């Protein structure tokens, strides 16, 4: 589990204080203790802090807020709030079938940062296109949606396995030969949400 931001900041402050000590009292480095201090302040702690920071950034990038922080993703965020259970992402999000704070990552686990090196390069390209390129009107997945993401939760679940519609195609679903989205075809529909009623969560 990554370090909380407050803990990370405290570690950074402690590291900078040690660095200041080495920089402002360089004569300390002449002694053995000073050499160890310089090693800790200028080598060990900076690498430790950078490693912990990377882990924290990776955790951040799983958050729904992170994914929706780019303007182009706003319609996809709105699609989670459609007041119609036929919309697959909305049904999952609103009924806590996916954790709301990590909704995008739960169903798109191999996306950009979390995918292979090709996916990571695509992620860098997304940032480039977002700031310097031309954003396409309609965003598409690079590869067809993989049933693996659905079966990760639904596979083995009684309601899914014993469903009369699923039974005849269960093997094909497992092999990704038939897509779940062939029947459950109302997904984000991000560019067809004009005028659609959105769900307002009632706060207890």
């Amino acid at each position, binding site marked *: 589990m990554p370090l909380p*931001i407050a803990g*990370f*900041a405290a570690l*950074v402050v402690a*590291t*900078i204080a040690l*660095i*200041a000590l*080495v*920089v402002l009292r*360089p*004569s300390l*480095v*002449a*002694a053995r203790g000073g050499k160890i201090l*310089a090693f800790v*302040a*200028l*080598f060990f702690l*900076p*690498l430790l*802090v*950078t490693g912990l*920071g*990377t882990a*924290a*950034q990776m955790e*951040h*990038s799983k*958050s729904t*807020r*992170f994914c929706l*922080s*780019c303007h182009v993703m706003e319609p996809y965020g709105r699609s989670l709030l459609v007041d119609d259970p036929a919309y697959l992402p909305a049904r999952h999000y609103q009924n806590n079938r996916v954790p709301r704070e990590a909704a995008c990552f739960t169903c798109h686990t191999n996306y950009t*940062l979390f995918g292979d090196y090709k996916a990571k390069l695509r*992620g*860098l390209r*997304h*940032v480039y296109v*977002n*700031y310097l390129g031309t954003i396409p009107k309609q965003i598409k997945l690079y590869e067809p949606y993989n049933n693996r993401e659905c079966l990760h939760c639904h596979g083995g679940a009684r309601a899914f396995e014993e469903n009369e519609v699923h039974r005849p195609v269960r093997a094909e679903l497992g092999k990704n030969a038939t897509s779940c989205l062939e029947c459950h075809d109302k997904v984000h529909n991000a560019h067809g949400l004009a005028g659609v009623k959105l769900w307002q969560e009632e706060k207890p």
Partner: protein
Amino acid sequence: MTTVAPQLIRRLQRAGLLVALGLIVETVTLFWPHPTAFLVFLFLGGLLVAAGVLLYLFAIVSSPLPSATSGEPSPPASA
């Protein structure tokens, strides 16, 4: 008493400055959950820290051995 060569001091100071700047950049990006923040963390913060750490390592391997009392660096030891 041993002293520290001025060149080593200068390199340690520069290394310290680079590492401190890198750590500050890394910390600031953690408060901003945005893909750009991740890139700034990696390519600015990470690069500054890496440069500082490498400069520190270079400083300690390239500095002459400190001499006793005189304050002058002693010549490198012959193999």
